């Protein structure tokens, strides 16, 4: 099987400081990769390099495009990369306000990606928006409300609907449950797990919360100081961590 995403020796520096370095891995269709590590370990830097928000200083990020097969997304033209961003890729931000248009209704937020790929039938766009709001447990009577009128958990669910409505093949998520109350987190995780299974999503999820990856990720990468220090199947890494740092990380979560 061809990987959906092939990451080869990616590095990003902020001046002399390491953002992330020596990162290589393959992601296969339908696979969910978790990236864990403490704050400042380089998770967001890596994710943003993969999603085209940051330009790495080194390495290749190859994506299996529909039209031309494997293409290095770093060297492709910006229009091509932006096209991927609004079709085959999705990005769920930690803060919903970074991923939503706060001055546009919920329906408009979900519909934007459809309109970006030339949907021009209002009735169809609205039907799809209602369907997707339902899938993230937002009732259709909220379709014309703005996200500012939503709770934090609802905003995050709206962001997910907005991202998934065009059926992306790869979803990037940066701390999707961060900043939410624990009970709200649990519900969101449940929802995400359902969607990942149902849509057979491929995803890369960055989090410092091991419970999130335990529930969602097939495989795990542990980062420290910009380096990947351990990788493996999620259960293996969490139940039998090899690296001393991972052992610390896992034990500290047990104490919580």
């Amino acid at each position, binding site marked *: 099987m061809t990987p959906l995403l092939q990451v080869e020796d990616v590095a990003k520096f902020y001046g002399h400081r390491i953002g992330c370095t020596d990162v290589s891995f393959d992601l296969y269709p339908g696979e969910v990769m978790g990236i864990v590590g403490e704050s400042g370990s380089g998770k967001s830097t890596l994710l943003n390099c993969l999603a085209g928000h940051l330009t790495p200083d080194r390495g290749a990020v190859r994506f299996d495009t529909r039209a031309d097969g494997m293409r290095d997304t770093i060297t492709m033209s910006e229009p091509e990369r932006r096209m991927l961003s609004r079709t085959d890729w999705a990005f769920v931000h930690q803060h919903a306000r970074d991923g939503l248009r706060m001055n546009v209704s919920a329906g*408009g937020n979900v*519909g*934007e990606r459809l309109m*970006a*790929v030339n949907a*021009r039938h*209002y009735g169809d*766009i609205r039907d799809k928006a209602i369907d997707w709001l339902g899938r993230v447990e937002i009732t259709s009577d909220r379709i014309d409300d703005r996200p500012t009128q939503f709770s934090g958990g609802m905003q995050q669910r709206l962001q997910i609907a907005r991202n998934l409505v065009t059926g992306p093949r790869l979803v990037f998520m940066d701390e999707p449950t961060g900043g939410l109350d624990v009970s709200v987190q649990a519900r969101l995780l449940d929802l995400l797990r359902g969607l990942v299974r149902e849509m057979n999503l491929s995803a890369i999820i960055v989090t410092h919360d091991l419970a999130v990856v335990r529930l969602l990720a097939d495989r795990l990468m542990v980062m420290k100081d910009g380096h990947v220090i351990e990788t493996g199947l999620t259960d293996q890494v969490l139940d039998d961590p090899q690296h001393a740092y991972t052992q610390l990380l896992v034990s500290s979560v047990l104490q919580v």
Partner: protein
Amino acid sequence: MTDYNFAYLDEQTKRMIRRAILKGLAIPGYQVPFASREMPMPYGWGTGGVQVSAAVLTPDDTFKVIDQGADDTTNAVSIRRFFQKTAGVKVTEATEEASVIQTRHRIPEQDLRDDQILVYQVPIPEPLRFLEPSEVETRKMHALEEYGLMHVKLYEDISQHGAIATAYAYPVKVEGRYVMDPSPIPKFDNPKLEMAGIQLFGAGREQRIYAIPPYTQVVSLDFDDYPFEASKADHACDLCGAEDSYLDELIVDDEGGRMFMCSDTDYCAGRRKQGHVGAQGVPYAEDAA
């Protein structure tokens, strides 16, 4: 007259503005940045349009200014006087006599010819602005033809009002490429954007010039199930009886009596001169007497 250079601006500035105009004509609908100059009138009074007019006027031109279709508003009168004084050009209120027409908020009813230039005053040139405040981002959207956001605006309109409620500054796509703000003309005027005359748009505060060359395709954005409609009040002009012109509504007495009349005052007067009389109108000769 000798106090000023012809049409107030110095020759170098006019050349700079003409270059922006030519670039605009070469790339229909594209917003060309230009170094807007201080004009002896406040922003919002059409300084963008005035600078464009100054750059295109020649001593042989005949100049007309309309504001909301009328030649006699304060704004129109002051701009007309300004060029009378600084350029010594002939001025007129008759659309067909004018070679350069500066306008705010309307396109004349009468079709323009290919030897006429229409100059628009533009307050906000960027049609994507209200949903995407970042200038860097909107420029990128134009460059990459990413116009989905424009339809989000129309979507919001329909979801809130049941129809596309945008009645002015209705966005258009020019020659299948750039999405453009036609300035706050009523959408009734949008079909007239495809014309024989040259159309130049000047935004002073925002320092942008853009253009539509003659006979350029201009399409108003819409949805398949909510097609664009160039609507106007369902009424005829009470003065001249015209059924095809854009109308202003006027309250005429304390009992709520209303009157509809052409917003294009020259068009209305022309029709009355030809003998047309509306429901509340009097024959032109009697009125003049």
